């Protein structure tokens, strides 16, 4: 673990150097990706994320229910056996497809769970960027009408 820590430190030192040299900005990883979150369809978001047309991969697992009792809270998790550096959750039929994205530094597991809103039954995409390459998996989540409806 110590070694891992050190390598991370070294990495961030290099990163910092690059930043101070003006090669990249340190805020880059932090800055909210407005274009991606405002992208309407799947393809728009893929393009903005630099994912092109990601390959479907068995290495990516999307943990999501088959049926959501309520679209306001849909639990979605991504795990992957690939060395993920970035992950994203997209909902095809939401007004803006991208729901959330995550950056996974070394030492953090390629695992994340959150909860999202879905306006209607839709395909949900789990994207993973590993070794510079985007992979994905897809699953349909049914959103049901519940309660007395009043």
């Amino acid at each position, binding site marked *: 673990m110590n070694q891992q820590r050190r390598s991370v430190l070294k990495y961030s030192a290099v990163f910092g150097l690059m930043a101070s040299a003006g090669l990249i900005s340190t805020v880059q990883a932090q800055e909210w990706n407005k274009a991606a979150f405002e992208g309407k369809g799947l393809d728009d978001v893929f393009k903005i994320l630099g994912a092109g047309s990601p390959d479907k991969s068995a290495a990516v697992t999307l*943990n999501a*229910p*088959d*049926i*959501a*009792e*309520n679209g*306001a*809270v849909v*639990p979605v998790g991504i795990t992957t056996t690939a060395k993920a550096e970035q992950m994203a959750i997209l909902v095809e039929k939401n007004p803006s497809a991208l729901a959330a994205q995550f950056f996974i530094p070394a030492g953090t597991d390629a695992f994340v769970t959150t*909860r999202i809103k879905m306006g209607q039954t839709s395909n949900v995409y789990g994207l993973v960027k590993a070794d510079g390459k985007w992979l994905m998996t897809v699953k349909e989540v*049914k959103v*049901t*009408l*519940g*309660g*007395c*409806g*009043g």
Partner: protein
Amino acid sequence: MQRKLTLGLASGLVAALLTMTSSVSAQKSATDDIAKYREMIADGNPSELYEAAGEELWKKPAGPKNVTLEQCNLGLGPGVVKGAAAQLPRYFKDTNKVQDLESRLMTCMQVLQGRDPEEMIDAPFQKGPKKDMEAIVAYVVTLSKGDKIKVSTAHPKEKEMYDLGKRAFFFQGGPMDFSCASCHAENGKRIRLQDLPNITEQKGAALGWGYWPAYRVSSGQFWTMQQRLNDCFRQQRFPFPIYGSDVTIALSMYMAKTANGGTVETPGLKR
């Protein structure tokens, strides 16, 4: 309850039963999937956010008297919060009334802090003084989580409240002829995909009473029992039940007493 069918339709019934079998299996998998969904969201109940705020409010001096609620007597003695909600509603000598958690908290706010209960009664849910009440309720009920529901009807006023509650449970009214019993008096029933507990039996009553107050996923709000009952009456198309009114306490008494022996699972996480 009898469901009369005219003779001419009886033959159709047989055919209907035949077609039903295939759709029943689809329905079963749908309800199984709902159960899986609930399991997935069970960890991480946002009620915790309200509970934390409630604990702070409990210990913060407030009201005209600038006093905390720490000496509030919820039935187990002044200042005892742990386990108190599991034994409510109950009769209180000082008010000579059967009170549920929220009406009792109003008494504490009035007596200890000098706050006017009318302000609480009139406030809309989720806003102003009710917002504080809801957080405090979240805090109090969390401290009974895992306890057994243990409500007494030993006092004549408790027994009377229970009887009134039982009668209110079956009271039909409004333009849809609904009573609580329209949805909650039979086993194995659902509205849409939501299971309806049969509150007339111990098991069902514990499933209902034991899981409220709860964080409600569909509204993204923490709902107290008073708000839950309020929304039942709204859906029944009744007029507006006054906050802390006797009908709400009577129904709570009926549910809680019927649920006796069940486990307090509050705060719950509901659709």
